[in-house]
């Protein structure tokens, strides 16, 4: 295997800038890797070799001219296929968007390009980011690089699988209810969901607008910090992006967590979380204590209601966000219809998969006049209570540690017929979306050859703290250096 593939994005950028390797060499190595393993993994929906090599040559030219090639110079990145890319088909892994070629780039895509990152292509997801296994992709399922019979998680399953299988150095995903962290946990990666408003959503195809947030999937905390440096910041095109200066997140990686107060919420170690996973996280807590962190028990009593409230709010917003897929202006359209209503109905019936339809129906119901107060308004109240839970906890601690998922990756097809069991795999990750706070998953061990993830959550805009805890843990452990055999 080419040595380049095992390098972190930080290392690639350093070597490319030092002219030890060229961006073209790096890009060619990763394109070859995709060629070699993606038949098995099926992470990529679209690979763009020509555009990638062109971008790599531009980076090399800049370096040759003595110009600053950017903090991610030459680092190959995989983009979740719900991020709009100018001139490149953007499908959301849905049949309804087949043929949709956006005339514009998402803000994060622009930012990565200006930082010298090389986009390799678009990666698979559960259709419109709705799901936890990438089996809901309207195109094809993606496999977990650690065990091809297991799911990579979802909805950013393609992003996680691509990075874990060394098809990309880093990837971008989106996280509405754990969709970055759960696949990161299943694939042994660092996955960061930033604070709501930290990263512009412009160009991210919306699932649930008040919950969606773009973030990195990487092998190291350092790479996550590096990518966050590039993509964070206010954007005049996204009203919900926050006008707050962006620190240099890599500067926060001190490797020193002495005196940091880390909370352990009893509700996240309850029934439903496998005893093995609990044991791994408990071991990791011991390591953090050994590194000088103070471990304090905390309680987040409304955690139990987060999942239920989420499954009102997210489908409600989705039912509205997905109304635009009507076959009139872009994407797929049925070839004949007697009037516009039939055009809408048939296009949507053929274009959307079962999970998406189910959520649209649920959300439509929850917003209906007679049910609004009982469902949507009530769920928003629960959301406030969850936020207050966290506020109270963060008066006592700097961060909260828990498992990311109740179990490691499950088998392909294992939970397809049991949507409730599937949704329960997001029970630990959903509260952070409901509260808008940052949360990060990182690998804390392997169970029967499958990665186990632990989650760090912090108050709004505490990404520096979370990244430093993860970084300090990674300095002490070597889980993140393990590679799947492919």
């Amino acid at each position, binding site marked *: 295997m080419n040595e380049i593939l095992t390098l972190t994005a930080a290392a690639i950028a350093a070597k490319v800038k030092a002219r030890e390797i060229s961006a073209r060499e790096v890009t060619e190595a990763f394109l070859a890797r995709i060629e070699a393993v993606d038949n098995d993994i099926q992470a990529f929906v679209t690979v763009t070799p020509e555009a990638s090599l062109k971008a790599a040559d531009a980076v090399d030219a800049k370096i040759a001219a003595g110009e600053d090639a950017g903090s991610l110079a030459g680092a190959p990145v995989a983009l979740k296929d*719900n*991020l*709009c890319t100018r001139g490149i088909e*953007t499908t*959301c892994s849905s049949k309804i*968007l087949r043929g*949709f070629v*956006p*005339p*514009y780039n*998402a803000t994060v895509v622009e930012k990565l390009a200006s930082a010298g990152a090389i986009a390799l292509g678009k990666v698979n997801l559960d259709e419109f980011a709705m799901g936890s296994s990438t089996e809901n992709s309207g195109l094809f399922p993606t496999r977990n690089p650690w065990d091809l019979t297991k799911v990579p998680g979802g909805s950013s399953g393609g992003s996680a699988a691509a990075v874990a299988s060394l098809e990309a150095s880093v990837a971008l995903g989106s996280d509405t209810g754990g969709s970055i962290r759960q696949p990161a946990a299943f694939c042994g990666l660092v996955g960061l969901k930033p604070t709501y408003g930290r990263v512009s*959503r*412009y*160009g*991210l*195809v*919306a699932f*649930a*607008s*008040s919950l969606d947030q773009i973030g990195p999937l990487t092998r190291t905390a350092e790479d996550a910090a590096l990518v966050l440096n590039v993509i964070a910041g206010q954007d*005049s*095109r*996204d*009203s*919900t992006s926050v006008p707050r200066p962006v620190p240099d997140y890599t500067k926060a990686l001190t490797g020193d967590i002495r005196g940091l107060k880390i909370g352990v919420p009893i509700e996240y170690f309850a029934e439903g979380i496998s005893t093995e996973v609990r044991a791994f996280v408990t071991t990791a807590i011991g390591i953090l204590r050994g590194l000088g962190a103070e471990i304090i028990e905390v309680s987040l009593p409304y955690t139990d209601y987060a999942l239920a409230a989420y499954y009102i709010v997210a489908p*409600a*917003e989705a*039912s*509205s966000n*997905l*109304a*635009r*897929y*009507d076959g*009139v*202006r*872009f994407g797929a359209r049925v070839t004949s219809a007697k009037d*516009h*209503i039939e055009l*809408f109905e048939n296009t949507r019936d053929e274009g959307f998969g079962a999970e998406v339809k189910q959520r649209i129906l649920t959300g*439509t119901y929850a*917003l*209906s*006049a007679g049910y*609004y107060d009982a469902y*949507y308004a009530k769920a928003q109240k629960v959301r406030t209570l969850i936020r207050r839970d966290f506020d109270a906890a963060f008066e006592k601690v700097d961060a909260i540690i828990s498992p990311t998922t109740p179990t490691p990756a499950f088998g392909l097809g294992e939970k397809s017929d049991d949507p409730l069991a599937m949704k329960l795999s997001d029970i630990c990750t959903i509260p952070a979306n409901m509260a808008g706070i940052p949360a990060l998953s990182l690998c804390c061990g392997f169970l029967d050859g499958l990665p186990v993830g632990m989650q760090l959550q912090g108050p709004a805009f505490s990404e520096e703290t979370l990244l430093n805890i993860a970084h300090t843990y990674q300095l002490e452990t070597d889980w993140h250096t393990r590679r799947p055999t492919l």
Partner: protein
Amino acid sequence: MEYEVSVGMECHAELLTNSKMFCGCENAFGGDANTRTCPVCLGLPGSLPVFNKAAVEHVIRTALALNCEISMHTIFHRKNYFYPDLPKGYQISQYGQTPIGINGYLEIETPEGAIKKIHITRVHLEEDTGKSIHIDGLGYSVMDYNRSGVPLMEIVTEFPPDVQSGEEAAQYAENLRSVLLYLGVSDGRMEQGSLRVEPNPSVRPEGSEKYGVKTELKNLNSFRAVRLGVEYEAARHVEVLESGGVIVQGTYGWNDEKGETFLQRPKEFEQEYRYFPEPDLIPIDFDEDYIERLRVTIPELPLAKKRRLMEQYGLPSSDAALLAQDQASAAYFEKAAKSAGDPRAVANWMSGDLTRLANAANTPVYATPITAENLRELVTLIEKGTITGKIAKSLIEDMFTTGKTASALVAEKGLKVTGADEALSIVQKVIAANPDVVAKIKAGNEKSAGFLVGQIMKEAKGQARPDDVNRLLKEELDKL
């Protein structure tokens, strides 16, 4: 049985802003289809709205002018429904308790000259839709999204409605339009649809507590159509009820040629819009200072101006109303009437010859080459007796074409008024030359005096003052 008419009024005005409500596309009328569009107003996946501050200010100023309270915390909502002209599948609008303006009123004047308050329940901000275009024989419709995302203000009257007739509905629409023009927030073009007036008339037996079923009138492109539409519809309601029928709830169009309404779309069920707060936009919080800064930009409003012009200048209601229709005309009038002896004469010139000339040249009265100062001077010359009205009528044509002052033209043309002495000799000359006519007059045929006046004016080349001529002729005839 006698019936009472009640009319709820819903008005939509496209706002005059440079760009659209939630994107940077130009806000303009007409042009090639789909040339003023972008990912945001086409509702492309991943696009996000960012609100237009100027549009928000327009709505605040309108709400203040309509005596509304301002919601200091206001939010946008999504109104969800499917239609090809609605790119996102929802319209960003304002629903519920906190639209920008609430609980205001607009005053109208009844035909008797009394003031009536028409209460307004809400003034809110939303976005316009695109347009479906149906081309005969094509077999499908085509879409133009140039209008999609144009800022739209909705003004809704309170229930139960204060408007009680077609006349009042038209009056309300006309006043509202003037207010919008005064504020500079809308061009008020009903024929282009930038101002859409949609009355909801209903009738009920006089004295009945319960309001009748209302129908919604659309495509009324003039105030006349508003009045006639409401009158027609109210009469139709009465007829239907009298013959034992029921009013079919729905949207009715107006056929201007036939002078009839027609059912466009029956309302079979309550539309379910699934309103919820727009998560892509953050709530807007105003502070008092900001609102006060906008409040001081509200000018004197049309009805107040009209009544002041009547009081201050002694103008009749009709003249004052005409002048108050737009600020520039009123300002022109006030400038011209200042220190002129008779402001009514100024108003008459404006509504008469000046309007005729201006219309022919397709410019507004206040923008012709005849400045307010020049009009004032013309009127003053007449008042001082330097020129006659008849001369003034010819002078104004020259003033219009040359832009010169009346006094300059008088000097140029050597025009002057025939003095009383000179007039007397002309009168005597004409009497002497027409003994037969004089005889007729003496025999009691007073009408024949007109012939003599004509002869005298002709002799004086129109430069004699009519008052002088009439007085002198009478005196001379009496002497005979």
